[in-house]
């Protein structure tokens, strides 16, 4: 094998200190909006991103629709009714604060985006006259055409626009820098966040970021059950560097999490049992509401919530008779009756009626503008679709007016996962926040996918901006903390340790072992003995094998750090699973030793945090955030008054 000289400087052992009022960890959508909000408030801002901010994060190469923009000029729903619908739909295992902020401020962020140079309207009149387009504002809508609260957007333009805006505002961006640990100080038993540490992933330089307030925007954990050492980048839905380092460092620092016992049977792993998202025939999300046909070419019927067959394509985008609005997209698959939208006939019923696999998406049977908006706009603007799906398939000869695209497995999901192949997907656990999007530790805030029960690009933008405002207000009231030099030394030693090990273990081997362990001990059916076995295994990895990890350059060192974080998060998940002593449908949580499903006594959030190195359980009522509208308005009069 050819060996190359590393083209970047070797700065291993060197250290740099950086100070700012506000520190943002993670340069995805949430992080960028957080940085912009803080900079607009006149704060000095540092943003730390492991990849390259211009195209980093789940929305780096685009996203196609923005949910819950309830205050856009065409909307006929209120923020309160949509936020509360989400809370009810998810049986209150939902993040009311996060949803309300999304519903209330999402449109403001889209309006911002337009001033930054992002495209949110059909300015070229490409879709003039389409039912989903408002010809006056040129805004375009998805799902519910009657209520118009989900917008179709040109997300490929968004990240570069945010990047340029941050540059304009003087945000100091540290690309290729992984954040690895939070800095805290404790005065009189009161803990406060005072910055973070990390490492340049190309040069190995150690970084200390001191700040008055810190915002965690580092997505959610991944590669816990699903890991392919061969095509690691395809293991999960989100980018491979988004593996939950924010969760791991938060947990180590004492941040409180909730819903960490929730995991779902795999939905996306293009290294394994599914196809690339939006790259196979289906009728969900980006592809809603594509016409589907079976192997014989017979059209699969769409039904309203009462089981009535819908006659036209247009009917698929309207609420049922007597229904005000319906919910679709993101975390919503099979909504409760109250919010259920049009959907294709149930798979079992189709089999009974003689429909034959495989199924296909057949856009040729749709009106021209509906076809073009799915293939060409949505598939094209959604992340990871412009080049590997839209361009590649077009080059291979795919023409949506002449061809039908196959679905795999049973129906539209194009995936056939096993029960133990799990993922943190569909509004998984994360940081428990208050109405300031503050964690339980003063000076540490969180936004986007780092929050519990979160999902969707629009929410990342809205909560990112909101956290940026609140973290700025806090930074205006406090001084810098005093960094413990011992903490710095310990972290530096922890990070560099794998460079000192000769002929040790590759990070992939440990990641494979964690994934197999989690499949065995934290799969579809859980019980105390299994979970304890799992914990014991993870502890043995920590004690015996983490010290044996070795690598040869800063890039591989970053991957090694990631696996150490994956191990930390796996332990948090196992402990959280032990804490819930009943089963739960909304949490996709099944305990064979506690088979009772959602008993009254356990209908609350169970929280987990580390105290003196030990996981401690907490209980928080589902409605801890109060009436979403009232509580929001109590705390945001400055914003409502026009101070954006």
């Amino acid at each position: 094998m050819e060996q190359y000289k590393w083209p970047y400087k070797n700065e291993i052992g060197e250290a740099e200190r950086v100070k700012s009022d506000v520190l943002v960890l993670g340069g995805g959508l949430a992080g960028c909006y957080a940085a912009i909000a803080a900079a607009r408030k006149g704060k000095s801002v540092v943003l730390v991103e492991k990849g390259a901010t211009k195209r980093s994060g789940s929305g780096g190469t685009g996203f196609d629709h923005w949910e819950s923009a309830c205050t856009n000029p065409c909307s006929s729903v209120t923020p309160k009714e949509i936020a509360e619908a989400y809370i009810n739909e998810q049986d209150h295992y939902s993040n009311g604060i996060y949803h309300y902020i999304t519903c209330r401020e999402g449109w403001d962020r889209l309006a911002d985006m337009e001033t930054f140079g992002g495209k949110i309207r059909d300015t070229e009149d490409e879709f003039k006259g389409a039912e989903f387009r408002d010809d006056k504002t040129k805004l375009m809508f998805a799902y519910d055409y009657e209520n118009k609260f989900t917008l179709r957007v040109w997300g490929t333009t968004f990240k570069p626009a945010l990047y340029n805006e941050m540059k304009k505002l003087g945000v100091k961006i540290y690309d290729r820098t992984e954040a690895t640990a939070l800095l805290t100080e404790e005065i009189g038993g009161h803990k406060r966040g005072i910055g973070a540490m990390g490492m340049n992933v190309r040069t190995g330089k150690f970084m200390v970021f001191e700040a008055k307030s810190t915002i965690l925007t580092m997505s959610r954990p991944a590669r816990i059950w699903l890991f392919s050492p061969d095509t690691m980048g395809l293991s999960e839905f989100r980018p491979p560097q988004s593996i939950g380092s924010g969760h791991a460092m938060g947990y180590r620092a004492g941040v409180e999490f909730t819903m960490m016992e929730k995991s779902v049977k795999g939905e996306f792993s293009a290294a394994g049992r599914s196809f690339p998202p939006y790259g196979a025939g289906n009728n969900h999300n980006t592809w809603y509401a594509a016409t589907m046909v079976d192997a014989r070419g017979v059209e699969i019927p769409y039904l309203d919530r009462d089981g009535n067959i819908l006659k036209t394509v247009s009917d698929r985008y309207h609420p049922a008779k007597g229904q005000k609005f319906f919910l679709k997209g993101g975390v919503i698959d099979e909504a409760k009756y109250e919010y259920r939208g049009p959907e294709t006939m149930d798979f079992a019923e189709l089999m009974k009626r003689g429909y034959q696999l495989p199924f296909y998406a057949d856009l040729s049977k749709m009106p021209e503008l509906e076809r073009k908006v799915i293939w060409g706009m949505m598939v094209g603007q959604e992340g990871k679709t412009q080049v590997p799906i839209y361009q590649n398939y077009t080059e291979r000869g795919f023409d949506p007016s002449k061809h039908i695209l196959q679905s795999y497995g049973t129906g539209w999901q194009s995936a056939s996962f096993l029960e133990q192949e799990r993922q943190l997907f569909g509004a998984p656990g994360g940081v428990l926040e208050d109405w300031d999007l503050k964690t339980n530790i003063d000076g540490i805030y969180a936004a986007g996918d780092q929050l519990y029960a979160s999902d969707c690009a629009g929410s990342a933008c809205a909560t990112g901006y909101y956290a940026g405002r609140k973290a700025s207000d806090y930074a205006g009231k406090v001084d810098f903390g005093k960094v413990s030099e011992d903490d710095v030394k310990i972290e530096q030693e922890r990070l560099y340790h794998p460079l000192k090990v000769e002929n040790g273990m590759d990070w992939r081997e440990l990641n494979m072992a964690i994934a197999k362990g989690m499949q065995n001990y934290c799969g579809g059916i859980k019980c105390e003995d299994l979970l304890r076995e799992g914990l014991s295994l993870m502890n043995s990895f920590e004690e015996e094998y983490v010290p044996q990890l070795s690598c040869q350059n800063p890039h591989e060192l970053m991957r090694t750090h990631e696996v150490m974080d994956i191990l930390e998060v796996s332990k948090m998940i196992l402990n959280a699973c032990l804490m819930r002593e009943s089963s739960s449908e909304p949490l996709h949580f099944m305990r064979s030793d506690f088979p009772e499903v959602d008993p009254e006594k356990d209908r609350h959030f169970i929280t987990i945090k580390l105290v003196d190195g030990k996981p401690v359980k907490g209980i928080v009522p589902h409605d801890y955030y109060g009436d979403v509208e009232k509580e929001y308005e109590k705390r945001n009069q400055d914003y409502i008054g026009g101070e954006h």
Partner: protein
Amino acid sequence: MSEIKAGAELFAEPVTCSTRPIIYNEDLCIGCNRCADACQVDVLVNSTEKGHHPIVMYPGECYYCGACVMECPVKGAIKLEHPLMNRAKFIPVK
């Protein structure tokens, strides 16, 4: 492999995997490294040879997002394609 010391020369060996996500057209690539700058996964490593395309050092880590192609100033200089197993089938309308 011995201990990595501060200031020492660092090395990397391309990590082989079963797929080739990114293929450069050497005649078209101008070696500007914009693709390597855009890659959020840092799959690509800048070439030390001026004018030469980056090295696909960690192909198995590719996320297939297409940022490298989107940022490339020369059409056709980079080809990104999903592994064979991920190319869904399409057929003429029935």
